[in-house]
């Protein structure tokens, strides 16, 4: 009896909230990417939107290279916001706000903005499209940011910063 129950117990410890919402959510994220890919041939990433949108307000050559894709990237991002809003209305029953402190969000966001653009992709570009393409660059990219993120989060937590 004890031996039979052990795997279940371990599963419950590793996945206290089960796995279905994560797996279903992940499949939908993949499906959304596939809709864009099959209709246009584009491997969509979320972080390029940051730079392509800056091309509306800045003449710097770095941003101007995204002029041709900036319009559909705005549409894609609006879709992401609306899609999440549909979830909030249907399942969440209203707005939800984070308790993570603003300075963490602002400073973390700053690093995310620099890092994703220098590193050629984020969790969607490298993680979903790149890994899906079996791209070595993306797999190395994902392992890098995942490892550093784990170390950072553990350190911050050890320093007693919460949430």
């Amino acid at each position, binding site marked *: 009896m004890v031996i039979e129950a052990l795997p279940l117990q371990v599963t419950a410890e590793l996945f206290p909230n089960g796995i279905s*919402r*994560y797996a279903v*959510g*992940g*499949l*939908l*994220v*993949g*499906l*959304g*990417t*596939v809709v*864009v*890919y*099959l*209709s*246009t*041939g584009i491997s*969509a990433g*979320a972080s390029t939107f940051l*730079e392509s*949108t*800056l091309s509306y307000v800045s003449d710097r050559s770095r941003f101007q290279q995204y002029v041709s894709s900036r319009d*559909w990237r705005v549409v*894609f991002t609006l*879709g*992401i916001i609306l*899609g*999440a809003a549909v*979830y*909030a209305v249907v399942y*969440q029953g209203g707005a939800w706000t*984070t308790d*993570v402190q603003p300075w*963490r*969000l*602002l400073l*973390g*966001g700053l690093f*995310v*903005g*620099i*890092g*994703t653009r*220098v590193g*050629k992709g*984020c*969790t*969607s570009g490298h993680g979903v*499209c790149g*890994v899906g*393409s079996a*791209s070595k*660059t993306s797999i*190395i990219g994902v392992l890098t940011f995942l490892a550093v*993120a784990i*170390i*950072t*989060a553990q350190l911050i937590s050890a320093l007693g910063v919460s*949430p």
Partner: protein
Amino acid sequence: MPLILVGGLVFGFGLAYSQMARPEVVLDFLQFEDFGLVFVMFGGAAVTGVTFFLAPRLLGRAPLTGDTFERRLKSFDRSVLVGGAIFGVGWGLSGICPGAAYASLGIGNVTILWALAGMFIGAYLQGYWRTRSETRETAATGAD
């Protein structure tokens, strides 16, 4: 465009459904308190993996743009490691990445505007630096 909006809708709904739009859930994952998030990335990559493999073989060209179907392959250099590490610090500090930040706004999390402001500032800074160093390199080459 309508299909890109549909793609975004499904993508955003999925991010919200997976709870990845909540920084707390991402931080729980990074602190080894809930490993469920692994399934979000693997689930997503599995779907794109099958599609990216089959589409070029079964379909000719993308119906809307006429583009050929290609895998997402980017050249590897040091910047992938440097940028990845910087992104990792930011992700570990804030618990939020770009796509999830947009979705987070959608679930009513106005506080995430702090992170979005940071991301735009960061993206602008690296663009500013890189444009400047490119200009300097061009000037140096021109002088030779």
